Protein backbone atom coordinates (compact mmCIF):
# COMPACT_ATOMS: atom_id res chain seq x y z
CA UNK A 1 0.00 0.00 0.00
CA UNK A 2 2.73 2.41 1.01
CA UNK A 3 4.64 1.47 -2.12
CA UNK A 4 1.64 2.25 -4.30
CA UNK A 5 1.09 5.59 -2.56
CA UNK A 6 4.68 6.60 -3.18
CA UNK A 7 4.46 5.48 -6.77
CA UNK A 8 1.38 7.57 -7.43
CA UNK A 9 2.79 10.58 -5.60
CA UNK A 10 6.07 10.40 -7.47
CA UNK A 11 4.33 10.23 -10.80
CA UNK A 12 2.09 13.15 -10.00
CA UNK A 13 4.99 15.34 -8.93
CA UNK A 14 7.22 14.27 -11.81
CA UNK A 15 4.57 15.00 -14.40
CA UNK A 16 3.83 18.31 -12.72
CA UNK A 17 0.18 17.39 -12.26
CA UNK A 18 0.32 18.62 -8.69
CA UNK A 19 2.55 20.97 -6.72
CA UNK A 20 2.32 19.19 -3.40
CA UNK A 21 1.20 15.85 -2.04
CA UNK A 22 -0.53 15.88 1.32
CA UNK A 23 0.23 12.63 3.09
CA UNK A 24 1.67 11.14 6.21
CA UNK A 25 5.16 10.30 7.34
CA UNK A 26 6.47 8.40 10.31
CA UNK A 27 6.81 10.67 13.33
CA UNK A 28 9.43 10.71 16.03
CA UNK A 29 6.97 9.72 18.75
CA UNK A 30 6.02 6.10 19.10
CA UNK A 31 2.66 5.36 17.47
CA UNK A 32 2.78 8.54 15.49
CA UNK A 33 2.06 8.98 11.85
CA UNK A 34 2.10 12.67 11.23
CA UNK A 35 0.94 14.84 8.37
CA UNK A 36 3.60 15.53 5.80
CA UNK A 37 3.66 17.81 2.81
CA UNK A 38 5.76 16.33 0.02
CA UNK A 39 6.92 18.93 -2.47
CA UNK A 40 9.72 17.12 -4.26
CA UNK A 41 10.27 13.68 -5.73
CA UNK A 42 12.87 12.97 -3.04
CA UNK A 43 10.43 13.73 -0.27
CA UNK A 44 7.99 11.17 -1.67
CA UNK A 45 10.12 8.44 -0.09
CA UNK A 46 9.05 9.67 3.32
CA UNK A 47 5.36 9.05 2.69
CA UNK A 48 3.77 6.20 4.63
CA UNK A 49 0.35 5.16 5.80
CA UNK A 50 -0.97 3.25 8.81
CA UNK A 51 -3.93 3.30 11.23
CA UNK A 52 -1.89 5.64 13.44
CA UNK A 53 -2.39 8.48 10.96
CA UNK A 54 -5.03 10.30 12.98
CA UNK A 55 -5.10 13.75 11.44
CA UNK A 56 -7.74 14.43 8.82
CA UNK A 57 -5.72 15.94 5.98
CA UNK A 58 -8.60 18.00 4.63
CA UNK A 59 -7.68 20.49 7.37
CA UNK A 60 -4.71 21.59 5.29
CA UNK A 61 -6.55 22.05 2.00
CA UNK A 62 -7.63 25.70 2.37
CA UNK A 63 -3.98 26.62 2.93
CA UNK A 64 -3.06 25.31 -0.49
CA UNK A 65 -5.74 27.08 -2.46
CA UNK A 66 -3.16 28.54 -4.81
CA UNK A 67 -1.66 25.15 -5.56
CA UNK A 68 -2.67 21.97 -7.20
CA UNK A 69 -2.79 19.43 -4.43
CA UNK A 70 -2.90 15.66 -4.20
CA UNK A 71 -4.35 14.41 -0.97
CA UNK A 72 -4.50 11.05 0.75
CA UNK A 73 -8.15 10.67 1.58
CA UNK A 74 -10.19 8.25 3.65
CA UNK A 75 -13.97 8.23 3.75
CA UNK A 76 -14.12 10.99 6.32
CA UNK A 77 -11.55 13.04 4.43
CA UNK A 78 -13.65 12.97 1.29
CA UNK A 79 -16.72 13.94 3.29
CA UNK A 80 -14.78 16.87 4.71
CA UNK A 81 -13.74 17.84 1.19
CA UNK A 82 -17.40 17.80 0.18
CA UNK A 83 -18.36 20.11 3.02
CA UNK A 84 -15.49 22.47 2.20
CA UNK A 85 -16.58 22.55 -1.44
CA UNK A 86 -20.20 23.18 -0.51
CA UNK A 87 -19.10 26.06 1.66
CA UNK A 88 -16.99 27.52 -1.11
CA UNK A 89 -13.65 27.05 0.57
CA UNK A 90 -11.93 24.87 -2.02
CA UNK A 91 -12.39 23.75 -5.61
CA UNK A 92 -12.66 20.15 -6.62
CA UNK A 93 -10.67 20.53 -9.87
CA UNK A 94 -7.58 21.65 -8.02
CA UNK A 95 -7.55 18.57 -5.85
CA UNK A 96 -6.32 15.15 -6.87
CA UNK A 97 -7.75 12.58 -4.48
CA UNK A 98 -5.74 9.49 -3.69
CA UNK A 99 -8.43 7.38 -2.06
CA UNK A 100 -7.65 5.04 0.79
CA UNK A 101 -10.21 2.58 2.12
CA UNK A 102 -9.86 2.77 5.87
CA UNK A 103 -10.20 0.26 8.66
CA UNK A 104 -10.26 2.91 11.34
CA UNK A 105 -7.61 4.85 13.21
CA UNK A 106 -6.19 4.18 16.63
CA UNK A 107 -6.46 6.42 19.70
CA UNK A 108 -2.72 6.84 19.57
CA UNK A 109 -2.27 9.33 22.40
CA UNK A 110 -4.45 7.37 24.80
CA UNK A 111 -2.72 4.12 23.93
CA UNK A 112 0.72 5.65 24.25
CA UNK A 113 -0.10 7.12 27.64
CA UNK A 114 -1.63 3.88 28.87
CA UNK A 115 1.61 2.02 28.23
CA UNK A 116 3.52 4.25 30.63
CA UNK A 117 6.86 2.94 29.49
CA UNK A 118 9.32 3.71 26.75
CA UNK A 119 7.98 2.23 23.53
CA UNK A 120 10.63 0.89 21.20
CA UNK A 121 8.70 -0.63 18.40
CA UNK A 122 5.11 -1.01 17.25
CA UNK A 123 3.54 -3.25 14.67
CA UNK A 124 0.08 -4.46 13.74
CA UNK A 125 -0.37 -8.19 13.33
CA UNK A 126 -3.60 -10.18 12.96
CA UNK A 127 -5.86 -7.62 14.52
CA UNK A 128 -3.47 -6.93 17.36
CA UNK A 129 -1.17 -4.04 18.06
CA UNK A 130 2.15 -5.38 19.26
CA UNK A 131 4.01 -2.87 21.37
CA UNK A 132 7.59 -3.56 22.31
CA UNK A 133 8.66 -1.61 25.37
CA UNK A 134 12.03 -1.61 27.05
CA UNK A 135 10.95 -4.40 29.37
CA UNK A 136 8.31 -6.45 27.61
CA UNK A 137 6.14 -7.07 24.60
CA UNK A 138 2.53 -6.02 25.03
CA UNK A 139 -0.30 -7.04 22.79
CA UNK A 140 -3.54 -5.11 22.69
CA UNK A 141 -6.57 -5.67 20.50
CA UNK A 142 -6.84 -3.35 17.51
CA UNK A 143 -10.60 -3.11 18.04
CA UNK A 144 -10.24 -2.00 21.66
CA UNK A 145 -8.20 1.04 20.73
CA UNK A 146 -10.19 2.12 17.72
CA UNK A 147 -11.38 5.68 17.61
CA UNK A 148 -15.04 5.58 18.57
CA UNK A 149 -16.20 7.15 15.29
CA UNK A 150 -14.26 4.56 13.32
CA UNK A 151 -15.78 1.77 15.37
CA UNK A 152 -19.21 2.62 14.01
CA UNK A 153 -18.11 4.19 10.72
CA UNK A 154 -20.52 4.00 7.84
CA UNK A 155 -18.33 5.59 5.22
CA UNK A 156 -14.87 4.03 5.48
CA UNK A 157 -14.35 4.15 1.71
CA UNK A 158 -13.63 7.41 -0.06
CA UNK A 159 -16.85 8.72 -1.62
CA UNK A 160 -14.93 9.82 -4.68
CA UNK A 161 -11.36 9.57 -5.85
CA UNK A 162 -9.07 10.00 -8.80
CA UNK A 163 -7.21 6.87 -7.92
CA UNK A 164 -7.91 4.24 -5.28
CA UNK A 165 -5.20 2.47 -3.32
CA UNK A 166 -6.22 -0.96 -2.09
CA UNK A 167 -9.52 -2.77 -1.92
CA UNK A 168 -12.72 -1.21 -0.68
CA UNK A 169 -13.69 -2.34 2.81
CA UNK A 170 -17.03 -3.25 4.30
CA UNK A 171 -18.59 -0.44 6.35
CA UNK A 172 -18.89 -1.30 10.02
CA UNK A 173 -22.03 0.72 10.67
CA UNK A 174 -23.68 0.22 14.00
CA UNK A 175 -25.23 3.56 14.71
CA UNK A 176 -24.48 5.52 17.86
CA UNK A 177 -24.47 3.16 20.85
CA UNK A 178 -22.04 5.43 22.73
CA UNK A 179 -24.49 8.33 22.50
CA UNK A 180 -27.39 6.14 23.51
CA UNK A 181 -25.53 4.87 26.54
CA UNK A 182 -24.85 8.41 27.68
CA UNK A 183 -28.47 9.36 27.17
CA UNK A 184 -29.57 6.58 29.48
CA UNK A 185 -27.74 8.10 32.44
CA UNK A 186 -29.75 10.37 34.65
CA UNK A 187 -29.59 14.10 34.21
CA UNK A 188 -27.29 14.96 37.09
CA UNK A 189 -24.88 12.17 36.25
CA UNK A 190 -24.71 13.41 32.67
CA UNK A 191 -23.95 16.91 33.85
CA UNK A 192 -21.31 15.63 36.24
CA UNK A 193 -19.51 13.74 33.48
CA UNK A 194 -19.83 16.66 31.10
CA UNK A 195 -18.38 19.10 33.64
CA UNK A 196 -15.53 16.76 34.52
CA UNK A 197 -14.59 16.36 30.87
CA UNK A 198 -14.79 20.04 30.03
CA UNK A 199 -12.83 21.18 33.06
CA UNK A 200 -9.81 19.25 31.78
CA UNK A 201 -9.61 21.65 28.83
CA UNK A 202 -6.57 23.96 28.77
CA UNK A 203 -7.82 26.08 25.88
CA UNK A 204 -4.96 25.23 23.56
CA UNK A 205 -7.53 24.96 20.77
CA UNK A 206 -5.91 21.89 19.25
CA UNK A 207 -9.45 20.60 18.62
CA UNK A 208 -10.32 23.69 16.62
CA UNK A 209 -7.07 23.86 14.73
CA UNK A 210 -7.06 20.22 13.76
CA UNK A 211 -10.65 20.26 12.58
CA UNK A 212 -11.12 20.36 8.80
CA UNK A 213 -14.32 22.33 9.29
CA UNK A 214 -12.81 25.06 11.47
CA UNK A 215 -11.42 27.36 8.83
CA UNK A 216 -12.89 30.63 10.15
CA UNK A 217 -10.41 33.45 10.22
CA UNK A 218 -12.00 34.84 13.30
CA UNK A 219 -13.35 32.32 15.76
CA UNK A 220 -16.24 33.20 18.07
CA UNK A 221 -14.12 32.18 21.05
CA UNK A 222 -11.66 34.97 20.25
CA UNK A 223 -14.38 37.56 19.92
CA UNK A 224 -14.26 40.28 22.52
CA UNK A 225 -17.46 42.05 21.49
CA UNK A 226 -19.72 40.27 22.09
CA UNK A 227 -17.87 38.11 24.53
CA UNK A 228 -19.29 34.65 23.85
CA UNK A 229 -16.63 33.00 25.93
CA UNK A 230 -14.83 34.91 28.64
CA UNK A 231 -11.13 34.49 29.35
CA UNK A 232 -10.05 32.16 32.08
CA UNK A 233 -10.80 28.68 33.17
CA UNK A 234 -14.19 28.95 34.75
CA UNK A 235 -16.13 25.80 33.98
CA UNK A 236 -18.95 27.72 32.36
CA UNK A 237 -16.57 29.28 29.89
CA UNK A 238 -14.94 26.00 28.99
CA UNK A 239 -18.40 24.50 28.62
CA UNK A 240 -19.63 27.42 26.52
CA UNK A 241 -16.68 27.02 24.22
CA UNK A 242 -17.26 23.35 23.63
CA UNK A 243 -21.04 23.60 23.39
CA UNK A 244 -20.96 26.38 20.84
CA UNK A 245 -18.19 24.66 18.94
CA UNK A 246 -20.41 21.60 18.66
CA UNK A 247 -23.34 23.76 17.53
CA UNK A 248 -21.17 25.22 14.79
CA UNK A 249 -20.32 21.69 13.77
CA UNK A 250 -23.93 20.63 13.40
CA UNK A 251 -24.42 19.27 9.91
CA UNK A 252 -20.78 19.94 9.09
CA UNK A 253 -18.90 17.60 11.38
CA UNK A 254 -17.86 14.55 9.39
CA UNK A 255 -17.16 12.51 12.50
CA UNK A 256 -13.49 11.87 11.76
CA UNK A 257 -12.60 12.12 15.45
CA UNK A 258 -9.47 14.19 14.92
CA UNK A 259 -10.50 16.75 17.56
CA UNK A 260 -10.65 14.17 20.32
CA UNK A 261 -7.62 12.23 19.15
CA UNK A 262 -5.31 15.23 19.16
CA UNK A 263 -6.43 16.71 22.50
CA UNK A 264 -3.38 16.80 24.78
CA UNK A 265 -5.59 16.47 27.83
CA UNK A 266 -7.69 13.67 26.37
CA UNK A 267 -10.94 15.59 26.69
CA UNK A 268 -13.82 13.54 25.31
CA UNK A 269 -15.47 15.53 22.56
CA UNK A 270 -17.02 12.97 20.27
CA UNK A 271 -19.91 12.21 22.58
CA UNK A 272 -21.09 15.73 21.82
CA UNK A 273 -20.48 15.90 18.08
CA UNK A 274 -21.79 12.39 17.56
CA UNK A 275 -24.92 13.21 19.50
CA UNK A 276 -25.70 16.03 17.08
CA UNK A 277 -24.84 13.86 14.09
CA UNK A 278 -27.18 11.18 15.42
CA UNK A 279 -30.03 13.66 15.88
CA UNK A 280 -29.58 15.07 12.41
CA UNK A 281 -29.62 11.66 10.88
CA UNK A 282 -32.54 10.36 12.92
CA UNK A 283 -34.78 13.41 12.88
CA UNK A 284 -33.79 15.23 9.71
CA UNK A 285 -32.33 12.44 7.59
CA UNK A 286 -29.26 14.63 7.13
CA UNK A 287 -25.75 13.25 6.88
CA UNK A 288 -22.97 15.76 6.41
CA UNK A 289 -20.55 15.72 3.51
CA UNK A 290 -22.30 13.29 1.20
CA UNK A 291 -23.12 15.78 -1.50
CA UNK A 292 -21.13 18.92 -2.33
CA UNK A 293 -24.17 20.42 -4.08
CA UNK A 294 -26.35 20.27 -1.00
CA UNK A 295 -26.69 23.40 1.13
CA UNK A 296 -25.45 23.23 4.74
CA UNK A 297 -27.87 21.87 7.35
CA UNK A 298 -28.62 25.26 8.84
CA UNK A 299 -28.82 26.83 5.40
CA UNK A 300 -31.99 24.99 4.45
CA UNK A 301 -35.21 23.81 6.07
CA UNK A 302 -38.21 21.65 5.43
CA UNK A 303 -41.77 22.68 6.14
CA UNK A 304 -42.31 19.50 8.10
CA UNK A 305 -39.19 19.82 10.28
CA UNK A 306 -39.60 18.59 13.82
CA UNK A 307 -41.38 21.25 15.83
CA UNK A 308 -43.16 19.48 18.64
CA UNK A 309 -40.84 20.99 21.25
CA UNK A 310 -42.22 24.45 20.48
CA UNK A 311 -45.18 25.66 22.53
Amino acid at each position, binding site marked *: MVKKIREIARKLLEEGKVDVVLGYEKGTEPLSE*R*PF*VARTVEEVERLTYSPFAIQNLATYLPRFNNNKVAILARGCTTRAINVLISEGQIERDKIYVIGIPCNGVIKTRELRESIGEEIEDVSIQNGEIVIKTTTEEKKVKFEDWLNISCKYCEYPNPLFYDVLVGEEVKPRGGGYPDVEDYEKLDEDKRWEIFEAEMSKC*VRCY*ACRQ*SCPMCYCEHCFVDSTEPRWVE*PGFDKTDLESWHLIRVLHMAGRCVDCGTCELVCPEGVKLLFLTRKVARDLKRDFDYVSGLNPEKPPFFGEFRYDDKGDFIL
Partner: protein
Amino acid sequence: MKRVPLSELERIYEALKSYGSVWVRKKNAYETAETPEELLSTVSKVKKPAKFIFLPEEEPLLAFVQDGKNVTFQEVIREAKGVIFGIPPCEAKAISLLDLNFLQGEGEDIYYKKRRENVLLFGLACLAPDSRCFCTTFGYGPFTESFTDIFGVVVDDVLLFEGITEKGKDLVKNLDVEDAKGEELKKLEAMKKEITERVKKLDIQGIQEKLARMMDSEIWDKISSSCLGCGACTYYCPTCYCFDIQDVERPNWGYRLRTWDSCMFTLYTLEGSGHNPRPELKYRWRNRLMHKFNYYPVLYQEFGCVGCGRCIEVCPVNIDIREILMEVKNEPIRA
Protein backbone atom coordinates in the same frame (compact mmCIF):
# COMPACT_ATOMS: atom_id res chain seq x y z
CA MET B 1 25.45 15.12 51.52
CA LYS B 2 22.87 13.86 53.96
CA ARG B 3 20.92 10.65 53.80
CA VAL B 4 17.48 9.47 54.78
CA PRO B 5 16.07 6.04 53.99
CA LEU B 6 12.97 6.18 51.81
CA SER B 7 11.07 4.29 54.47
CA GLU B 8 11.64 7.18 56.87
CA LEU B 9 10.69 10.04 54.58
CA GLU B 10 8.18 11.35 57.10
CA ARG B 11 11.17 12.77 58.96
CA ILE B 12 11.74 15.33 56.24
CA TYR B 13 8.09 15.53 55.23
CA GLU B 14 7.22 17.28 58.49
CA ALA B 15 10.03 19.79 57.99
CA LEU B 16 8.87 20.49 54.43
CA LYS B 17 5.30 20.84 55.62
CA SER B 18 6.32 23.65 57.94
CA TYR B 19 7.08 25.74 54.83
CA GLY B 20 3.56 25.43 53.54
CA SER B 21 2.22 23.20 50.80
CA VAL B 22 4.29 20.27 49.63
CA TRP B 23 3.84 19.73 45.91
CA VAL B 24 4.72 16.33 44.53
CA ARG B 25 4.81 14.84 41.07
CA LYS B 26 1.59 13.34 39.85
CA LYS B 27 1.09 12.05 36.34
CA ASN B 28 -0.75 15.07 35.07
CA ALA B 29 0.43 17.90 37.31
CA TYR B 30 2.18 18.83 40.53
CA GLU B 31 -0.28 18.37 43.36
CA THR B 32 -0.11 18.97 47.07
CA ALA B 33 0.73 15.87 49.07
CA GLU B 34 -1.43 14.68 51.93
CA THR B 35 0.81 11.91 53.18
CA PRO B 36 4.60 11.38 53.28
CA GLU B 37 4.22 8.31 51.04
CA GLU B 38 3.32 10.59 48.18
CA LEU B 39 6.89 11.91 48.15
CA LEU B 40 7.87 8.56 46.67
CA SER B 41 6.21 9.37 43.33
CA THR B 42 7.90 7.57 40.48
CA VAL B 43 6.57 9.83 37.77
CA SER B 44 9.58 10.89 35.76
CA LYS B 45 8.01 13.65 33.71
CA VAL B 46 4.94 15.47 34.94
CA LYS B 47 2.76 16.46 32.01
CA LYS B 48 2.05 19.98 33.23
CA PRO B 49 5.35 21.48 34.34
CA ALA B 50 5.95 23.23 37.68
CA LYS B 51 5.54 26.55 35.89
CA PHE B 52 1.81 26.07 36.57
CA ILE B 53 2.52 26.92 40.21
CA PHE B 54 4.30 30.20 39.49
CA LEU B 55 2.36 31.15 36.40
CA PRO B 56 -1.09 29.66 36.76
CA GLU B 57 -3.27 29.27 33.68
CA GLU B 58 -5.41 32.08 35.02
CA GLU B 59 -5.02 34.51 37.89
CA PRO B 60 -7.13 37.51 38.87
CA LEU B 61 -5.09 40.67 39.35
CA LEU B 62 -7.79 42.91 40.73
CA ALA B 63 -11.49 42.92 41.39
CA PHE B 64 -13.92 45.81 41.21
CA VAL B 65 -17.42 46.39 42.50
CA GLN B 66 -19.73 49.26 41.67
CA ASP B 67 -22.29 50.47 44.17
CA GLY B 68 -24.14 53.46 42.88
CA LYS B 69 -21.50 56.07 42.13
CA ASN B 70 -18.82 54.37 44.17
CA VAL B 71 -16.44 51.96 42.56
CA THR B 72 -14.16 50.00 44.85
CA PHE B 73 -11.06 48.24 43.63
CA GLN B 74 -9.34 45.46 45.37
CA GLU B 75 -5.92 44.14 44.49
CA VAL B 76 -5.73 40.39 44.33
CA ILE B 77 -2.44 38.57 44.68
CA ARG B 78 -2.65 34.86 44.53
CA GLU B 79 0.07 33.54 46.74
CA ALA B 80 1.82 30.24 46.91
CA LYS B 81 3.98 29.01 49.73
CA GLY B 82 5.73 25.73 50.23
CA VAL B 83 8.12 23.30 48.65
CA ILE B 84 8.06 21.60 45.28
CA PHE B 85 9.44 18.19 46.05
CA GLY B 86 11.03 16.20 43.27
CA ILE B 87 11.32 18.87 40.63
CA PRO B 88 13.78 17.61 38.00
CA PRO B 89 16.73 19.76 36.90
CA CYS B 90 15.14 20.63 33.56
CA GLU B 91 12.12 22.23 35.19
CA ALA B 92 14.25 23.92 37.82
CA LYS B 93 16.35 25.39 35.05
CA ALA B 94 13.21 26.47 33.27
CA ILE B 95 12.17 28.35 36.40
CA SER B 96 15.56 30.04 36.52
CA LEU B 97 14.87 31.17 32.95
CA LEU B 98 11.47 32.51 33.98
CA ASP B 99 13.23 34.38 36.79
CA LEU B 100 15.38 36.16 34.23
CA ASN B 101 12.26 37.51 32.66
CA PHE B 102 10.08 38.15 35.67
CA LEU B 103 12.43 39.20 38.47
CA GLN B 104 14.74 41.66 36.80
CA GLY B 105 14.72 45.43 36.75
CA GLU B 106 11.70 47.20 35.37
CA GLY B 107 10.07 44.01 34.24
CA GLU B 108 9.71 42.77 37.77
CA ASP B 109 6.40 41.05 38.18
CA ILE B 110 5.06 41.25 41.72
CA TYR B 111 2.58 38.45 41.20
CA TYR B 112 5.23 36.05 40.03
CA LYS B 113 7.68 37.27 42.63
CA LYS B 114 5.32 36.74 45.53
CA ARG B 115 5.01 33.09 44.66
CA ARG B 116 8.57 32.54 43.57
CA GLU B 117 10.02 33.95 46.78
CA ASN B 118 7.99 31.67 48.98
CA VAL B 119 8.45 28.41 47.18
CA LEU B 120 11.50 26.24 47.69
CA LEU B 121 12.65 23.91 44.97
CA PHE B 122 13.59 20.51 46.33
CA GLY B 123 15.08 18.99 43.21
CA LEU B 124 15.60 15.35 42.54
CA ALA B 125 17.97 13.97 39.96
CA CYS B 126 16.16 12.62 36.94
CA LEU B 127 16.76 8.89 36.88
CA ALA B 128 14.71 8.06 33.84
CA PRO B 129 15.25 10.48 30.98
CA ASP B 130 13.03 9.34 28.11
CA SER B 131 13.46 9.26 24.37
CA ARG B 132 12.35 12.89 24.04
CA CYS B 133 14.87 14.35 26.45
CA PHE B 134 17.77 16.37 25.12
CA CYS B 135 18.68 18.41 28.18
CA THR B 136 22.42 17.87 27.90
CA THR B 137 22.30 19.98 24.74
CA PHE B 138 21.95 23.06 26.91
CA GLY B 139 24.97 22.61 29.10
CA TYR B 140 23.43 20.85 32.05
CA GLY B 141 22.09 17.40 32.75
CA PRO B 142 19.77 15.17 34.74
CA PHE B 143 22.02 15.53 37.81
CA THR B 144 22.60 19.29 37.73
CA GLU B 145 21.85 20.71 41.16
CA SER B 146 22.54 24.40 40.68
CA PHE B 147 19.01 25.54 39.81
CA THR B 148 17.42 24.12 42.94
CA ASP B 149 17.42 25.07 46.62
CA ILE B 150 17.96 21.54 47.83
CA PHE B 151 19.04 18.76 45.56
CA GLY B 152 18.64 15.06 46.12
CA VAL B 153 19.19 11.76 44.42
CA VAL B 154 17.44 8.51 45.16
CA VAL B 155 20.12 5.83 45.38
CA ASP B 156 18.52 2.41 45.85
CA ASP B 157 16.27 2.92 48.86
CA VAL B 158 17.94 5.96 50.29
CA LEU B 159 17.46 9.63 49.49
CA LEU B 160 20.75 11.53 49.45
CA PHE B 161 20.43 15.29 49.51
CA GLU B 162 22.15 18.56 50.28
CA GLY B 163 21.30 22.22 50.55
CA ILE B 164 22.38 24.30 47.57
CA THR B 165 21.15 27.83 48.30
CA GLU B 166 21.17 29.54 51.68
CA LYS B 167 17.47 28.79 52.14
CA GLY B 168 18.03 25.19 51.29
CA LYS B 169 21.01 24.88 53.58
CA ASP B 170 18.95 26.30 56.45
CA LEU B 171 16.30 23.68 55.92
CA VAL B 172 18.81 20.86 55.79
CA LYS B 173 20.62 22.13 58.90
CA ASN B 174 17.53 21.75 61.04
CA LEU B 175 16.87 18.19 59.96
CA ASP B 176 17.74 15.25 62.13
CA VAL B 177 19.51 13.14 59.50
CA GLU B 178 22.88 11.46 59.22
CA ASP B 179 25.63 11.96 56.65
CA ALA B 180 25.71 9.95 53.46
CA LYS B 181 27.88 6.85 53.42
CA GLY B 182 30.97 6.56 51.25
CA GLU B 183 29.67 3.70 49.11
CA GLU B 184 26.45 5.55 48.46
CA LEU B 185 28.32 8.57 47.17
CA LYS B 186 30.37 6.31 44.97
CA LYS B 187 27.26 4.74 43.54
CA LEU B 188 25.80 8.19 42.94
CA GLU B 189 28.80 9.17 40.85
CA ALA B 190 28.44 6.05 38.75
CA MET B 191 24.72 6.66 38.25
CA LYS B 192 25.35 10.25 37.32
CA LYS B 193 27.75 9.28 34.58
CA GLU B 194 25.60 6.48 33.24
CA ILE B 195 22.31 8.37 33.17
CA THR B 196 23.75 11.61 31.85
CA GLU B 197 25.24 9.71 28.93
CA ARG B 198 21.88 8.17 28.19
CA VAL B 199 20.46 11.56 27.19
CA LYS B 200 20.89 12.25 23.51
CA LYS B 201 22.83 15.46 23.05
CA LEU B 202 22.21 17.62 20.02
CA ASP B 203 24.93 19.67 18.45
CA ILE B 204 23.45 23.14 18.14
CA GLN B 205 26.73 24.99 18.04
CA GLY B 206 26.29 28.37 16.40
CA ILE B 207 22.52 28.18 16.06
CA GLN B 208 21.99 31.57 17.61
CA GLU B 209 24.18 33.34 15.06
CA LYS B 210 22.77 31.29 12.24
CA LEU B 211 19.19 32.16 13.13
CA ALA B 212 20.01 35.83 13.13
CA ARG B 213 20.73 35.55 9.42
CA MET B 214 17.65 33.51 8.59
CA MET B 215 14.81 35.98 8.93
CA ASP B 216 13.93 35.67 5.24
CA SER B 217 14.76 32.02 4.83
CA GLU B 218 12.41 29.69 3.02
CA ILE B 219 12.82 27.20 5.79
CA TRP B 220 9.93 28.71 7.76
CA ASP B 221 7.50 27.62 5.07
CA LYS B 222 8.75 24.11 5.32
CA ILE B 223 8.78 23.98 9.11
CA SER B 224 5.30 25.34 9.51
CA SER B 225 3.68 23.39 6.70
CA SER B 226 2.20 20.69 8.91
CA CYS B 227 1.71 22.89 11.99
CA LEU B 228 -1.94 23.30 12.93
CA GLY B 229 -1.45 26.52 14.87
CA CYS B 230 -2.76 25.37 18.23
CA GLY B 231 -1.14 26.42 21.47
CA ALA B 232 -0.31 23.05 22.97
CA CYS B 233 3.48 23.35 22.58
CA THR B 234 3.61 26.70 24.31
CA TYR B 235 1.15 25.86 27.06
CA TYR B 236 3.04 22.79 28.18
CA CYS B 237 6.46 24.34 27.65
CA PRO B 238 8.13 24.98 31.01
CA THR B 239 9.83 28.13 29.72
CA CYS B 240 7.01 29.79 27.77
CA TYR B 241 5.49 32.60 29.77
CA CYS B 242 3.44 34.80 27.46
CA PHE B 243 0.24 36.06 28.98
CA ASP B 244 -2.75 38.16 28.15
CA ILE B 245 -4.68 40.48 30.46
CA GLN B 246 -8.41 40.91 29.98
CA ASP B 247 -11.31 42.17 32.01
CA VAL B 248 -14.35 40.12 32.87
CA GLU B 249 -17.22 42.53 33.34
CA ARG B 250 -20.74 42.38 34.65
CA PRO B 251 -23.06 45.34 35.12
CA ASN B 252 -21.76 46.10 38.62
CA TRP B 253 -18.77 43.93 39.27
CA GLY B 254 -15.85 42.42 37.47
CA TYR B 255 -12.27 41.41 37.66
CA ARG B 256 -9.07 41.71 35.71
CA LEU B 257 -7.74 38.37 34.67
CA ARG B 258 -4.32 37.32 33.53
CA THR B 259 -4.36 34.19 31.41
CA TRP B 260 -1.83 32.45 29.28
CA ASP B 261 -1.38 33.41 25.69
CA SER B 262 0.46 31.67 22.93
CA CYS B 263 2.53 33.11 20.12
CA MET B 264 1.08 30.41 17.89
CA PHE B 265 -2.35 32.07 17.90
CA THR B 266 -3.44 34.54 15.24
CA LEU B 267 -4.78 36.84 17.91
CA TYR B 268 -1.42 37.11 19.63
CA THR B 269 -0.17 39.87 17.35
CA LEU B 270 -3.42 41.09 15.84
CA GLU B 271 -3.61 44.84 16.19
CA GLY B 272 -6.66 46.99 16.78
CA SER B 273 -6.49 48.31 13.25
CA GLY B 274 -6.88 44.83 11.89
CA HIS B 275 -3.29 44.65 10.79
CA ASN B 276 -1.38 41.57 11.81
CA PRO B 277 2.41 41.74 11.64
CA ARG B 278 2.56 37.96 11.77
CA PRO B 279 -0.25 37.07 9.41
CA GLU B 280 0.77 33.52 8.65
CA LEU B 281 1.84 30.51 10.60
CA LYS B 282 5.34 30.66 9.27
CA TYR B 283 5.94 34.04 10.89
CA ARG B 284 4.62 32.75 14.18
CA TRP B 285 6.85 29.74 13.95
CA ARG B 286 9.80 31.93 13.17
CA ASN B 287 9.08 34.00 16.23
CA ARG B 288 8.76 31.02 18.50
CA LEU B 289 12.04 29.54 17.39
CA MET B 290 13.81 32.89 17.30
CA HIS B 291 12.61 33.73 20.77
CA LYS B 292 13.97 30.56 22.25
CA PHE B 293 17.21 30.30 20.29
CA ASN B 294 18.11 33.83 19.38
CA TYR B 295 16.37 36.60 21.32
CA TYR B 296 16.68 34.87 24.67
CA PRO B 297 20.39 34.16 24.32
CA VAL B 298 20.99 37.70 23.07
CA LEU B 299 19.18 39.15 26.08
CA TYR B 300 20.18 36.75 28.81
CA GLN B 301 22.99 34.58 27.41
CA GLU B 302 20.80 31.52 27.92
CA PHE B 303 18.73 29.50 25.48
CA GLY B 304 15.00 29.67 26.14
CA CYS B 305 14.66 25.93 25.89
CA VAL B 306 15.62 23.28 28.43
CA GLY B 307 15.23 20.20 26.28
CA CYS B 308 12.47 18.50 28.22
CA GLY B 309 10.67 17.30 25.10
CA ARG B 310 7.15 18.17 26.26
CA CYS B 311 6.32 20.02 23.06
CA ILE B 312 7.27 16.94 21.06
CA GLU B 313 4.92 14.84 23.12
CA VAL B 314 1.86 17.09 23.19
CA CYS B 315 2.01 18.30 19.59
CA PRO B 316 -1.03 16.94 17.74
CA VAL B 317 1.04 16.46 14.63
CA ASN B 318 4.28 15.49 16.30
CA ILE B 319 6.38 18.42 15.18
CA ASP B 320 9.78 17.72 16.67
CA ILE B 321 11.86 20.68 17.76
CA ARG B 322 15.01 18.57 17.59
CA GLU B 323 14.49 17.92 13.90
CA ILE B 324 13.77 21.56 13.33
CA LEU B 325 16.97 22.63 15.07
CA MET B 326 18.89 20.23 12.87
CA GLU B 327 17.14 21.50 9.76
CA VAL B 328 18.02 25.05 10.70
CA LYS B 329 21.59 24.02 11.28
CA ASN B 330 21.86 22.26 7.93
CA GLU B 331 20.04 24.89 5.91
CA PRO B 332 22.44 26.66 3.58
CA ILE B 333 22.34 30.42 3.85
CA ARG B 334 22.03 32.22 0.57
CA ALA B 335 23.81 35.49 0.19
